[in-house]
């Protein structure tokens, strides 16, 4: 078995008297899509926030490519190549597509114009934005300088995914990417996810939508009561079994399987 890209051991996070994460483990292997499912309050989003740097766990450790890391902000995680597509997408509606793709890490012109006059390299950013969108087959978005608010929900999701794909060198985390989308748009986003996988970028997919998770995930991490209950193989496990495990109706197998 190869080494995990991203690993977490014994993560604990308490919010007052509520224990959101109770010695939770997590493993993501190279090139895979890992589905993360769990009932409401099972600790999925807390786990993901800990992995993406949005919150700091009280205990436990996170290991990225064999090195222990301590994230104190999403910026720390991003700097190390972990990109997150948040449920609210973190896009700025009035700004253009290319401005959003490069938001927070804009490119400046080389030389004195960039250094002293802080001049943006807009042409280069537009070129790269067009390239990133084209790479993901999002060429239906024609005008790279149109504001994001003029896009449909699926297109916005596409922009957020393109941003993650462009900068995520190690891991892409997606939080409920299809939750707000219609049937056709969800389909497109699932294709995007598979597309990222083909570029051998490992993906963590958090979703409530069982059919979506079962369709694209290679392994499924089931969280329950703040810890990893088990890992199942979507090809040998049925959705109703997964739901039974999630809700506690069924006992997990003794050892984590489907490695």
């Amino acid at each position: 078995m190869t080494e995990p890209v991203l690993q977490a051991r014994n993560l604990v996070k308490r919010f007052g008297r509520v224990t959101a994460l109770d010695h939770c483990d997590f493993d993501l292997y190279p090139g895979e899509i890992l589905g993360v499912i769990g009932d409401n309050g099972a600790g999925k989003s807390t786990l993901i926030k800990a992995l993406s740097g949005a919150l700091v766990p009280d205990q436990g450790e996170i290991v990225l490519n064999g090195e222990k890391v301590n994230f104190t902000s999403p910026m720390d995680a991003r700097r190390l190549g972990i990109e997150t597509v948040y449920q609210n997408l973190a896009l700025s509606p009035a700004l253009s597509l290319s401005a959003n793709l490069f938001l927070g890490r804009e490119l400046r012109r080389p030389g004195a114009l960039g250094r002293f006059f802080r001049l943006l390299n807009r042409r280069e950013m537009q070129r790269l934005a067009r390239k990133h969108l084209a790479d993901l087959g999002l060429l239906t978005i024609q005008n790279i300088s149109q504001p994001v608010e003029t896009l449909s929900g699926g297109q916005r999701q596409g922009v957020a995914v393109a941003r993650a794909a462009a900068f995520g060198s190690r891991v892409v985390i997606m939080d409920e990417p299809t939750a707000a989308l219609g049937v056709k748009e969800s389909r497109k986003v699932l294709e995007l996810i598979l597309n990222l996988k083909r570029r051998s970028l490992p993906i963590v997919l958090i979703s409530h939508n069982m059919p979506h998770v079962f369709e694209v995930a290679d392994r499924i991490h089931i969280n329950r009561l703040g810890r990893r209950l088990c890992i199942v193989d979507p090809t040998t496990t049925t959705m109703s079994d997964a739901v039974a495990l999630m809700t506690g109706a069924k006992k997990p197998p003794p050892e984590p399987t489907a490695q």
Partner: protein
Amino acid sequence: MTETTGKPQDFEQAAQASGDFAVFEEEDGNRFLRRIQHFLHTYPTVVPFIVLLTGVIFFAALVGSKFFAPFNLSLILQQVTIIGIVGIAQTLVVLTAGIDLSVGAMMVLSSVVMGRLAVISGVPVPVAFFLGLATGFACGLINGTLVAYFKLPPFIVTLGTWSIFGALNLYYSGSETIRQQEIAAVAPFLQFMGTAIKFGGARLTYGSILMVMLAVLIWYMLNRTAFGRHIYATGDDPDSARLAGIDTDRTLLAVYAIAGVICSIAAWALIGRIGAVSATAGGTANLDSITAVVIGGTSLFGGRGSIVGTLMGALIVGVFRNGLALAGVQVLWQEFTVGALIIVAVAIDQWLRRVSQ
């Protein structure tokens, strides 16, 4: 859009048959109106431009050559200068979805600091001038700190500092006016912005040139630097901006501080305009600057608007006031007109925002 990937569910195949993904669908009715809405949404400064043009044509027809006289046009520009500069500061703050009610107070306090230090205390003029700018900067930092780090609403913060800066101004100045001759004797530099280039009957003051230069500088900052984009993003959706990696608190602090400095630059233009340093000058600068910003199409909800719009907004108010005055309309009806313009401007902003839904 093919079946090559994954295992699409049956119900999804039915959906696939019905055409492409994410095509903009348009209702048949109101297409024309929607197209106008879309156009204005893309080019928001067109609205104030049309209003300005309409105003100019209207008053040209109404009062004729008196309005177009070079002297009159340059008078409008002079009247607009102070509000234009303060409006630039206000625009920055409003773009972050904030508001700065203390702009007038910061301007007057800075002008009093410059004037009293140079004329009464005998401080060298460059030092007095610099300390005046530093006063604006310090006031802006106070506003920014309270808004960004104490998370207080900008309206309340600047309502408070408006009174505080106003009180400091009265304390320091003792409500005394420094007369024109006194300043001209020791610190003519402070009145420099009131001097004018004359050609024909027109008087183009250096203050107006300063306004334009400042507008170009801030336009560049907003549209050609990363910091400018962060200002828009912070006003548009602060949570998203933060998740995208922008330090929104620092952006806010910087915006209020820059606004303070711009207000102290406006103080220089103010001394030039009235010649003297008066503790009670610029009383209407607050609301006038907000008026210019709003009529210029900048949204009070943040994230959209422009410096060009604000300058046009200031010019619109100037043109309407001047034109109506030339036409012999009472001051109260000038105010009435400006009020109506504000409401129309906000209504258009609301309408344009609906383009995204």
